[in-house]
């Protein structure tokens, strides 16, 4: 299978602080990968580097055979990378369905004047978008909430809406930043099913950052471990659980405690 995302010696420095240090890895087109590591290990910085919010100090990010150097964050979305945020960033005062419609922004086929003069093309395209958005909301069991303001949804539903919104941009690679944060065990279980469903139904690669080890070990096929910006280990869940450096850096206490 072909590689969709390739990181080559990516380093990200903020002044004297090296947040990500010489990280290289390959993500295949259908991978479900987790990135783990203690707080401050550089996981979110890595996401920001991939999505073009930061441009790496050195090294390169190659998505779909295209170097993302100097490509604006908004254009990275158009190329096919979508993400969610650690602290939810919905458009709070817009309705649920408008949140999703917005994500279709780069795929809209009608022009500015079609919108102003409400041409046939505008109506057809808006209808199509509306239907697609409703389908997506149905998948996330949010269709009955479509006219709610986003800020009035329960926390777990807001997280789901953010994922639905990311999917609506039509990505080939989905980055989830702590999707299970703040969810209860039932919601987390639902989430793990949902992530599998998304990958199979939309046929994309998924990278997630997550602290919930149960979820990570259950769904990830491959795990990358970051510590102080260094990639210290990679492998399948079993290998990671038994990796000495990982246990030292981070998992040790948890595994011993659970034994």
């Amino acid at each position: 299978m072909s590689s969709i995302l390739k990181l080559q010696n990516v380093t990200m420095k903020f002044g004297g602080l090296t947040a990500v240090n010489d990280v290289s890895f390959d993500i295949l087109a259908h991978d479900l990968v987790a990135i783990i590591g203690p707080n401050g290990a550089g996981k979110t910085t890595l996401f920001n580097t991939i999505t073009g919010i930061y441009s790496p100090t050195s090294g390169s990010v190659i998505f779909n055979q295209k170097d993302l150097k100097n490509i604006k964050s908004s254009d990275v979305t158009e190329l096919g990378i979508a993400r969610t945020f650690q602290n939810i960033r919905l458009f709070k005062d817009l309705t649920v369905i408008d949140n999703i419609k917005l994500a279709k922004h780069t795929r809209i086929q009608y022009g500015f004047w079609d919108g102003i003069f409400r041409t046939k093309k505008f109506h057809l395209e808006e209808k199509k978008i509306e239907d697609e958005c409703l389908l997506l909301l149905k998948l996330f069991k949010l269709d009955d909430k479509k006219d709610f303001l986003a800020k009035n949804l329960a926390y777990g539903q807001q997280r789901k809406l953010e994922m639905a919104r990311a999917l609506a941009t039509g990505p080939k690679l989905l980055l989830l930043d702590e999707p299970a944060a703040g969810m209860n065990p039932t919601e987390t279980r639902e989430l793990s099913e949902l992530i599998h469903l998304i990958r199979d139904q939309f046929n994309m690669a998924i990278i997630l950052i997550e602290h919930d080890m149960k979820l990570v070990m259950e769904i990830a096929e491959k795990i990358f471990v970051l510590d102080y910006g260094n990639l210290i280990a990679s492998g399948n869940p079993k290998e990671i659980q038994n990796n000495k450096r990982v246990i030292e850096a981070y998992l040790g206490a948890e595994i011993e405690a659970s034994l």
Partner: protein
Amino acid sequence: MDYYLQILLIAGIFITLTLSLNLINGFCGQFSLGHAGFWGVGAYASAVYSVYYALPLPAAINMMIAIIVGFIAAALSGILIGVPCLRLKGDYLAIATLGFGEILRIIITNTEKIGGPRGFINIPHWANIIWVYAIAAVAVVFMINLKRSSFGRAIISIREDEIASENMGVNLFKYKLFSFTIGAGIAGIAGALFAHTQQFLHPSNFNFMWSVIILVMVILGGQGSVTGSVVGAIVLTIVPELLRFAGGNIAAWRMTIFPVLLILLMLARPQGIFGPHELGGSKLRSKA
């Protein structure tokens, strides 16, 4: 009769002006305090056309040309100011636009050809109340349709959350500059109407005070609400005049009473009369 007509004229021009600032301030969330400057540029540019360069055409066609001139001149000054200023956010943007608005006004004050501090006279009376309200109606339809199109959604998302908006593929700078330019351009159209109904322009018509008044109209009606802008513009033009007729002390105190009413309204409804919504908003939305 002239007095009432004048109030209606001004209310109509302010509807267009308020809508234009609402695009920048209410839709896109960019805090601009220099809007009267764009209004002034449009007014003076259109008057320069009608006084010095008018073609031998019927008044209605000439007025169309004057409106286009006003739009282009104000939109160009919008680009000129927007490119450097839109990199700033919030308070800093407000101060920068305030400064630029004043610069525009001072340039006008010091240009002899357009009357300088004495004012610009002899502008032909090409526009009337029908022009004013026809343009206001076009502006209303433009804004409502924009709000419900993908373009408008992108602009509104910038107000809601810039980072998330960019993450949805919205080119922040492009859309901010678009709202700023079109907002300035529409203010320029309002300026052209003002020039050709009043037949006289003075730099003091376009000072900082007026930027604030337009802003108050936007906020009073509800930021992001087209209906709100219309109501805000009408209320703020007519209520101070109504107080004139209240008789006795009230008339004398009207400029004190009026701000107090505004404060009370803002305390009761900080989101403005309509909030971000429209009259009959749910109906409009389900059709879209």
